[in-house]
């Protein structure tokens, strides 16, 4: 098992997501939430949208039921690029958004954008694989532009913080 993990660690970074990585990312995605401050703290459920990543949806569906973050329920939304969503708190982009209603509806909105594979434009947190381990990069500036605040303790363990 250990040997397997080591072997995997030596695989090219850009290789397709391994099953384990998606599970970790799903867990991380939920774990990001307590470290994020939204400009208007809501009281209802925290809504996480997942775009273009069925694996992630599946994993989230597995862990979310009953899971509360800061006392709030966490809901999962499978989102399409063609749809506008104005009640998302966070969104995971399986692929970069190339325009569309979804992108428009997110623009300027206090929605935590989590990308996969670095920090594309507009993404605030992005998963990276470092030394075979899932890590993340952060762009507090991008977050600040929409009024979000990334916790210092989160930034402290980010692989890279984009200024």
């Amino acid at each position, binding site marked *: 098992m250990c040997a397997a993990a080591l072997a995997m660690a030596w695989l090219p970074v850009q290789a397709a997501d391994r099953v384990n990585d998606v599970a970790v990312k799903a867990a991380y995605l939920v*774990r990001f939430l307590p470290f994020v401050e939204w400009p208007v703290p809501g009281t209802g459920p925290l809504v996480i949208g997942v775009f273009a990543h069925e694996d992630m949806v599946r994993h989230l569906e597995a862990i979310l039921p009953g899971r509360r*973050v800061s006392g709030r329920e966490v809901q999962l939304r499978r989102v399409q690029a063609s749809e506008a969503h104005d009640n998302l708190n966070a969104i995971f982009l399986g692929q970069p958004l190339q325009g569309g209603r979804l992108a428009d509806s997110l623009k300027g909105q206090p929605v935590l954008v989590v990308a996969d594979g670095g920090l594309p434009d507009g993404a605030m947190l992005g998963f990276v694989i470092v030394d075979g381990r*899932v890590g993340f990069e952060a762009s507090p500036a991008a977050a600040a532009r929409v009024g979000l605040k990334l916790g210092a303790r989160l930034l*402290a*363990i980010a692989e890279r913080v984009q200024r």
Partner: protein
Amino acid sequence: VSSRTPPRSLRRKLLMIVMAATGAAMATSMAALLAHETWQYRQSGLRDLQAQAELLSKSLAPTLLFNDRKAARDTLATLTARPDILEAVVMAADGGTFATHRAHDAPDSGEATTGWLPLLTELSLTYRISESGETLGQLQLTRRLDLAQRLQGLVAILIAAAVPGLALAALIFRRLHPKVTGPVLAVAEAARQVKDERRYDIRVTATSDDEIGQLIDAFNRMVRDLALEMSERRGAEEALRLADRRKDEFLATLAHELRNPLAPIATAVELLQRAGDDEARRTRSIDIIRRQLKQLVRLVDDLLEVSRITRGKLELRREPVELTALARTACEAAQPVVEQRRHSLDIDLPAEGVWVQGDAARLLQVIVNLLTNAAKYTPPQGRLRLSVKATGDGAVDLAVEDNGVGIAPEHREQVFDMFFQVDHSLGRGSAGLGVGLTIASQLVAMHDGRLSLHSDGLGQGSRFTVHLPTVAPPAAAAPAALAAPDVRDESGPRPGGAKVLIADDNTDFADSLGALLRADRHQVRVVHNGLDAWGALQRDWADVAFLDVGMPGLDGLQLARRIRAGAPSRPITLVAVTGWGQASDHQRVMEAGFDQHWVKPFEPERALRLAADLRGPAAPPA
């Protein structure tokens, strides 16, 4: 002196106790202080670790959340600034070690010291790392406890305080210990003085009423009692010595007194031998011999009396006695010595009789003795006085007073002691043996009375008082026949003289008595054993027979029985003559049939009187 001073070990012991107690108290408080300090130190260390762990866990929570060991290590690396934290271990929720940090000088945790030592040198804390209520893992912090260093200073301070503390205790002890040791040492010193120097006047002053005070009191009482006993013992020894000396003096006096009459007797015998027909010289010689014999007899009587009284062998024959008659008789008896010294004697007696229960002869002896003493110890032409006065409380005082030499106060108690003589300068002849007052006092005491002495001092005269309980007069108030107690007054005088038989193996005694009676014109026969006496009586009866009890052949008792048995109806007065005057002898003699029991030596007058009284017509003609 210094070698005798006892070692002051008491003080040393007390000092040891005080120092030990003080040291123990100090050590205890030091230990308590150190324990408290240790505890405090551990507590503050724990609080510090707690705060540290809390701080670290904030940073460590995300690293666990996002599985960032490097970040965790980095976070723990901040502990480098805390060299006292030996080890920090982050454990993941699954129990695996997530990150560790070790101070560069930390001992290998694998070789952790065992036993209780880590408790004092290390402090460990396990802190739960959680985020939003989710337990992510735990943080174990171990820090060094530098207790030794921490306590080192404190111990130094405490020791620095203990030294002056003990010194202060010693100083206080020095100031205060005399309160305790002082009295004890005083008692010890006093005891030493009592023991070594035999000083019994030592007293220790008690300054408190605690146990030491009690000790001192007890000691003082003990010494006082001891002193009392010692002085009593000394007094007793002194009295014993005195009595011994008196006895020696008495023996000397006795020898002297017994010897005294012998010289004149010897002279008189010489005179008699050469007297020839010189009647006057013979008479004078005989008078001398008679007088000296009387003196000898009196001496021996006194001695026998003393012996009898001191051995408790004297028995009183007590009967109602009329005291005033007795007093008169005594005055008559004492008349010769009173007249000889040309004293005047006043007699003051109550009109009615005063009766006491007593032995008339003994009481008479007492009164005569007092009168004789008064006459002797009063210069010639003195004034004597005899008085009898009822005291009203059922008793009577018979007092004999004189205006003579008196008695010094210091001798008042001693005059009743045996062999005591106030003034040895008085001639031996008049002084006697010094037993008269002893006898008198003891005789009075035997009569339930008291003989007391009053004298205002030397030259002030004396008054002896016989205090006796009185009794009611007997129904037939006949005075005891004192004037002639031994006389059988049944026959009148006879012209031919009495027929007298004398039987005694002491030929001198028998012949002399016989001569005396013959001189009084009695018919006297003298024999020297019982059988001859019996034969003589068979040949010719007698009016009176003086029979020696201890004769060879037929002794007096057997002879008397034979006489009484042989002729129970023929009148004869049997007089037993013995050297023993004991009560038991008296009884045996009377049972044998004797009429009278005379103890040798008796006065010749007595025999003459008896023979004279038996003269009479009742006796058969010669």
